[in-house]
């Protein structure tokens, strides 16, 4: 890196360099122009609304058994039917949403908070630190994500915090890689050189110029990670390794439903549909943002110009 770090850049000089504000705007733009992002966003809002307001609107307690009304099929009084203890399934699915969101949000943020600084610092420092970290990342990536989560949850015992960690662990390398690729790629760019020339310090360059460029791919990663975290949490509960009763989770509901597939198929259909729609909403948004940012679609235009 250059040695000119004594004078501090003036505001005017800073403004002359691209700060990639468009990176933020472009994410916002996706929600105006891409139908998938709009549909995904609305779907997500509906799910969040149901999770937050639902418990007040539904006249049943998700834990309250009603033995007069066991295995009731979906009807006007029980929209999703009732389970083996006569508990209202809609109330239980809505209750499951909040635990699902809490675990997935925590897990994807935890992976971001650990992975991103790790990638930034190691790629910045370089040398042996970088090499050793990379080998560790390779080893973690070799573990199938779900297998890793299962093993970790067995070791840590089920709790919300250990679920965060168990699910986040295998996504850490993905964040580290995205950041690393960006830092290494951007380091050589002309605008970074220009920032050096006007006297910006190394940290200022990392935070003001390089990191903003990484935010959009990070947004994609967090979105898709959230989707997979929801699925992994459900898988763990389905296997009986997640938060057990009395906590209500979608995976746990599906596990219960397995025994009653023939008598009460609705017990399997509705919690699974809620799960699938949640994942779908994030996949739709993530895909839309990714397509918008995909350098391949952009570069195709550049290549044509060059010819």
């Amino acid at each position, binding site marked *: 890196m250059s040695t000119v770090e004594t004078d501090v850049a003036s505001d005017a000089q800073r403004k002359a360099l691209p700060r990639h504000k468009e990176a933020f705007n472009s994410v916002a733009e996706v929600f105006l122009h891409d139908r998938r992002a709009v549909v995904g966003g609305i779907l997500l809002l509906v799910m969040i609304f149901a999770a937050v307001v639902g418990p007040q609107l539904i006249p049943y307690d998700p834990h309250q058994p009603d033995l007069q009304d066991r295995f009731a099929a979906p009807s006007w009084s029980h929209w999703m039917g009732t389970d083996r203890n006569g508990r209202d399934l809609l109330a239980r699915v809505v209750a499951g949403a909040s635990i699902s969101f809490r675990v997935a949000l925590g897990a994807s943020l935890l992976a971001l908070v650990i992975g991103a600084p790790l990638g930034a610092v190691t790629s910045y420092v370089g040398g042996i630190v970088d090499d050793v970290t990379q*080998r*560790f990342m*390779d*080893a973690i990536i*070799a*573990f*199938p*994500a*779900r*297998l890793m989560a*299962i*093993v970790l949850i*067995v*070791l840590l*015992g089920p709790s919300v915090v250990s679920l965060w960690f168990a699910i986040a662990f295998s996504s850490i390398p993905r964040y580290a890689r995205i950041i690393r690729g960006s830092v290494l790629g951007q380091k050589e760019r002309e605008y970074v050189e220009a920032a050096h020339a006007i006297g910006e310090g190394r940290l200022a360059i990392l935070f003001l110029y390089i990191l903003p460029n990484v935010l959009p791919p990070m947004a994609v990663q967090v979105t898709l990670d959230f*989707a997979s975290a929801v*699925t992994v949490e*459900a*898988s763990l509960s*389905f*296997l*009986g*390794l997640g938060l057990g009763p009395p906590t209500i989770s979608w995976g746990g509901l*599906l596990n219960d*439903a*397995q025994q009653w*597939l*023939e008598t009460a*198929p609705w017990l*399997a*259909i509705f919690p*699974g549909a809620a*799960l*699938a*729609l949640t*994942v*779908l909403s994030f*996949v*739709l948004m993530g895909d839309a943002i990714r397509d918008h940012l995909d350098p*391949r679609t952009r570069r*195709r235009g550049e290549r044509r110009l060059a010819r």
Partner: protein
Amino acid sequence: MIRYILLRAVQIIPTVLLVTMMVFVLVMVIPGDPVLSMLGYYADDTTAVPQEIYDRMFRELRLDRPLPIQYLYWLGDALQGDFGKSVVFRVPVIDVVLSRVPATIYLGTFAVAIAIAIAVPFGVWAAMRNNTWVDHLASGFVLFGISVPGFWFGMIVILVFSIYLGWLPAIGYVAPQDDFLEFMKHLILPAGVLGLDVAATVLRFQRTDFLEQLHQDYVRMARAKGLPRRIVIWKHVLKNSLMATVTVVGLNTARLLGGSTIIETLFSYPGLSRLLIEAIYARDFPIIQAVVLLMVVLVVVVNFCVDLVYAYLNPRIRYITA
């Protein structure tokens, strides 16, 4: 090519070693006493085992030695296929594990075959009819495959094909040498559910890659020199884009193994993943260690093979890396 193989082989050694270390540490970090854990007891249950058995186990596990030495012994034993004795089955771990391998291999192979059979033709078709109903159908299929969790889709499939229609058995497994027809009947549903999951990922890449190939210079060149479109597509474009397919299928091994933990449990299919879950319920740590190690090493080896196939198909990779 030989140089490239050696280079890549040397590169994966640290990864494999780290993986073995992580799996070894796994049992060491179980909260509480490793001897009790290895014997299948809860770690705080100190009165469960007589002192002399405890002492013998303590020496057998070499817990009196420093941790790095323990690891080296363990690695040496593991390389010879010795993972100790299963707590539940009271026989060598390796025998239990190997007895479950064929079922998982059948399931995985069949799932990949289904995935390729759906994804490749569909992906090519969607790319050639870009932005038509075929393409939209393919996108819908991809979204469905990615968003719908396998275990839920599996339940729906059981509901439809086993319970309502009664066409196929919902659970279980029959060895192919015993009754091939029954074997196939038991395999179709789990392999189909698992395969559909992989198919979505493969289809997405196949479509994008084929579309990109269609816009390459060599395609325009081939068309310009008068080659019919049919030949350009089937002889040149498809061949090139299948490279991407090889990679994606290979990289999905991890996903396949992860997915199989749930699918094998749902369909009570006696493969490796089901063994893992059973071992977890029974706290059979030697088995857990062996299965996890086997799966992860399998992923690393498959990725290594994918690299080689890719380098073989695309000579440029060899020159860049070597």
